[in-house]
């Protein structure tokens, strides 16, 4: 994989201020999920504004696809087509009188034809789960809806890199979980995603590369495990350890679990606890996880399936799935961390059904398969119907036995 975005010894000072970035160097690979983490005033927003050339470094270079950024207006257009930016405050981004006009703003300025714009806009709105909001004025939307509309405005330009400044800072926990799922969905479709945050739980769980910034320099760039298991790094940058890791460290120091790989989630923590607690486990046949692709399966069929299979826990990923569940009055048991919850339930012998958008179906199979391989448990993932395709046989190694 190649470096998509590279920061090479960047210096920057706002007019008549001390330097806010002093020698920042890091690179981001194509298809990465990157979190810029750091305390308030560390220079995260300044860095983000450099990704698409809003700010020009006073020293150093920003490279996109190996090419140094040029700051004339024509080159900047190309850069901004490739690097989409979603701001922390959605209100500043949503300036047109209707959602449709706002999302159409980028494509219009890129010179697309009206019918093409219409196609692009409705696709972007569908992707973020705001289909039917075209005529609404942005100031009447809720916080979460505003954020989605702002994302749609960026998606409409079909960027390769999506940069989010504090994406979850103004959202409630459910809204934040929804948004992170949307980010995962976009990532599954091939986008490279960069977020800035000081939510350590979020960064630890979601990102696969952490760039720790403080006082205008990069303190460390590496995997979440590297960054968050190092107490010196964590405290020196005004952060805290994620709760799962903190519990794990305490358990290790009490020799209640063996020190192996740091757990990412409650699921991994529970399974390492189970493995090291010497008690013989009462054998219970694990439950199954049924996957349903809501983009191709009709609401009627899903409702019928749910009625035919009582005793299943219901989980939904993404807005479309959640909307469908609400419309069909299917009570949801999990709305965030859905796959992990499904696995946790399966381990205690309960079955669950996960409603997911098309792009996340392979992800469910992969995630469960990875878990099974690592833990030695076997949990079956069953497609609900033929419309929910499991990934091609070659793409997957052996799955657990089916019922």
């Amino acid at each position, binding site marked *: 994989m190649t470096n998509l975005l590279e920061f090479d010894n960047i210096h920057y000072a706002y007019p008549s201020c001390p330097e806010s970035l002093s020698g920042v160097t890091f690179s981001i690979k194509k298809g990465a999920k990157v979190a810029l983490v750091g305390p308030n005033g560390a220079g995260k927003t300044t860095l983000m*504004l450099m990704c*698409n050339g*809003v700010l020009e470094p006073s020293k150093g270079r920003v490279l996109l696809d190996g090419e140094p950024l040029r700051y004339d207006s024509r080159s*900047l*257009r190309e850069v*901004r*087509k490739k690097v*989409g*930016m979603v*701001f922390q*405050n959605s*209100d*500043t*981004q949503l*300036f*047109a*009188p*209707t959602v*449709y*006009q706002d999302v*159409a*703003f*980028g494509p*219009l*300025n*890129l*010179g697309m034809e009206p019918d093409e*714009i219409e196609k692009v806009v409705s696709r972007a709105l569908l992707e973020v789960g705001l289909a039917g909001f075209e*005529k*609404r*004025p942005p*100031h*009447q939307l809720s916080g979460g809806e505003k954020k989605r509309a702002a994302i749609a*405005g*960026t998606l409409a*330009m079909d960027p390769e890199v999506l940069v989010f400044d504090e994406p979850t800072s103004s959202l409630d926990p459910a809204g934040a979980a929804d948004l992170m799922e949307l980010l995962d969905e976009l990532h599954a479709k091939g986008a490279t995603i960069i977020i800035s945050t000081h939510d350590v739980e979020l960064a630890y769980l979601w990102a696969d590369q952490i760039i720790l910034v403080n006082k205008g320099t990069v303190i460390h760039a590496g995997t979440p495990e590297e960054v968050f298991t190092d107490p010196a790094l964590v405290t020196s940058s005004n952060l805290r350890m994620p709760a799962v890791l903190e519990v794990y460290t305490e358990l290790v120091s009490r020799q209640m679990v063996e020190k192996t790989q740091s757990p990412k989630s409650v699921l991994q923590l529970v399974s390492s606890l189970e493995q090291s607690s010497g008690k013989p486990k009462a054998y219970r046949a694990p439950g199954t996880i049924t996957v349903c692709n809501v983009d191709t399966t009709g609401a009627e069929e899903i409702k019928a399936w749910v009625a035919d299979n009582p005793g299943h826990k219901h989980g939904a990923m993404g807005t479309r799935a959640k909307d469908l569940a609400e419309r069909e009055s299917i009570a949801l048991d999990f709305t965030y961390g859905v796959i992990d919850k499904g696995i946790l339930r399966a381990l205690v012998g309960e079955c669950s059904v996960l409603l997911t958008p098309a792009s996340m179906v392979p992800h469910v199979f992969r995630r469960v398969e990875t878990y099974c391989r690592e833990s030695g448990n076997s949990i079956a993932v069953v497609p609900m119907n033929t419309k929910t395709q499991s990934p091609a046989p070659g793409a997957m190694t052996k799955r657990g036995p089916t019922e």
Partner: protein
Amino acid sequence: MSFMEENLDYYAQSNALRDVNCYLKLALGLGAIFICIASPAPLAPLFIVITLSAITLVVAKIPVRVYVELLHIPVIFAFFSVIVILFLSGSGDTILTFTVANVPLTITTGSANLASLVLVRTFGGMCGLFFIALTTPMIEIFSVMHKLHFPPVMVDLSMLIYHFIFVFIAETIAIHNAQTIRHGYTSLKRSINSMAMLGAMLFIRGWKEAEDLIIAMDSRCYDGKLALPGQQNPPKPAAIASIAVYLGLCIAVAIMTSTIVPFR
């Protein structure tokens, strides 16, 4: 409901006539205003006041309370002007005459007729204006401006101004709350002081918002294009017919009652 939800824009977005073609709504409102102004006698404007209010309240389903609250301000203004007109010397017989502080004041049939005409014309005109304001969202008016080939700069500016109205309202409410909870409005002196601070702060924040807006627009390749004509529902024949009938009726009333005056 807070002010953020309950304003003209809210009703313009949510009334029962929201999806009717906006040219028709504009034709109805502007037509009514024109007939009010053109009518030489007060009966036609009075007819419009009653019928157009009924349309706004019953067909567009605007709450009576909101409508009365909106109308009472201009009507009170009109009422005071009418009192002045009453005492302007007019032609015709004297209805009433009296003296206030050695100034003789006289009401004649002429001035009374003129006063009543001005009152109902203003009233009718306001009904027409509020019909448009309460049923037609600004965004549709922008697209009409665009289609009528208003200068793009003007349309774009109006759209940004419209956006900033809500930014300003939200900021004002936030600052006002922050001041109120710290006793910023407990005495007249403090109120004036707080109000001044609020104004200054609004200016600074407005400026900052505008700078952020430029960054946001540039990030999405702003190239001087902002206005995009919205799609209009095509006018339904029944709607066209009923508006034509209504305006025709108003004109007929105006012509037939053009010689009828309240005071002879």
